[in-house]
């Protein structure tokens, strides 16, 4: 098993990258976060217990790095978020799609980190409330209320625009 640890992580990488870019708000910062996460996971691979889920373990490492070390990045991004026309992190499409997609990014960028991670974990990454709470390390009720505040804010922001 331990020999294929790298392979398991590699298989998770597309999902981890989606979460990282969603958290960090740009592909460049998200990939940096991904790299830090992979490095920490490799350094701490002994701490992962076989038989437990590798994906939630990796998500937890990533969100901890983001919370601990990502603040400077986040501040920088928030400063420029309104001016940055190239902020879209999602898929491209026609001109219309690009405009629409970047609105989601802008709305997400306005959320406090704890709401953003709750929204991403549940609504994008598909974790249950319980699993998401375990990744964040908070009670389910707390996760639930962050999620609600986050999604209400998103609904309000996106409704305004439309």
């Amino acid at each position, binding site marked *: 098993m*331990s*020999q294929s640890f*790298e*392979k398991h*992580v*590699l298989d998770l*990488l*597309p*999902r981890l*990258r*989606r979460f990282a*870019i*969603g958290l960090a708000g740009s*592909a460049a910062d998200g*990939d940096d976060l*991904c*790299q830090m996460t*992979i*490095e920490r996971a*490799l*350094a701490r691979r*002994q701490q992962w217990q076989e038989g437990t889920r590798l994906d939630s373990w990796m998500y937890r490492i990533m969100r901890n790095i983001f919370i601990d070390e990502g603040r400077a990045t986040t501040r920088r991004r928030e400063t420029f978020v309104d001016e940055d026309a190239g902020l879209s*992190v*999602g*898929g*491209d499409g026609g001109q219309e799609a690009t405009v629409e*997609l970047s609105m*989601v*990014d802008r709305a997400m960028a306005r959320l406090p980190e704890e709401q953003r991670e709750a*929204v*991403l974990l*549940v*609504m*994008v990454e598909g974790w*249950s*409330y319980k699993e998401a709470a375990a990744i964040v390390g908070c009670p389910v009720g707390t996760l*639930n*209320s962050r*999620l*609600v505040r986050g*999604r*209400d804010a*998103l*609904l309000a922001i*996106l409704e305004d625009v439309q």
Partner: protein
Amino acid sequence: MSITAEMIAAFADGELEDAERAVVEAALAADPALGRKIAAHRALKDRLTSHYAPIAEATVPTHLAALLDSSREPANASKVVSFAAARQKRGLAPMVRRWAPVAGPALAASLILAIWQPWQARTPEGYAGGDLATALETQLAAAQPADAPTRILISFVREGGGLCRAYRSGETGGIACRDTTGWKIERRFELQGPDKGQFRQAGSEAELLTAAQDMAAGEAFDAEAERAAKAQGWAN
């Protein structure tokens, strides 16, 4: 029961328990606004999902995938040195942590990942040094070459704790146990070569293994336990 914003969102996500779900369902029939809120939550989820989906479908950047390519050297601190160069350093007992994850068998034989520590500048009395220390530290009984100069016979935990390995190098063999200093040689054996019957006084590998068994607290390691012990740096 009043319906909270949390309940509405959880209902939309299919996360409500039966009792609360029944409350929301009942209210839903009477309150069209509630239905619109739930629809808005689900629409938001769809929108976010489709917004971020292309990232997970995209090819992972090569520099990230390369970090997980086990055929390459890890990007972090450890230093790859050639085995030959390590042996040229007279008086140094290379502390070999693990085989460098290299692609080809030829490279695997000539490259090691070595980390020197101060105590390795000189092999302390009674401890394994040089090639023997390297073999004890790196070789797995289950995966060593058939013609390895030193062969690991078994690995086990001794009575009272501590990890030990029985080994054989040609006509000598022994049992070494790992402590914080290195591999302390606990027992030495002169062994009978397979085709050298003239050494009547020499013992057999079986005696060595019996001695190991006497020292052991339990069973000898199987391949997996051995690999795990190595991964933990032989700490017990």
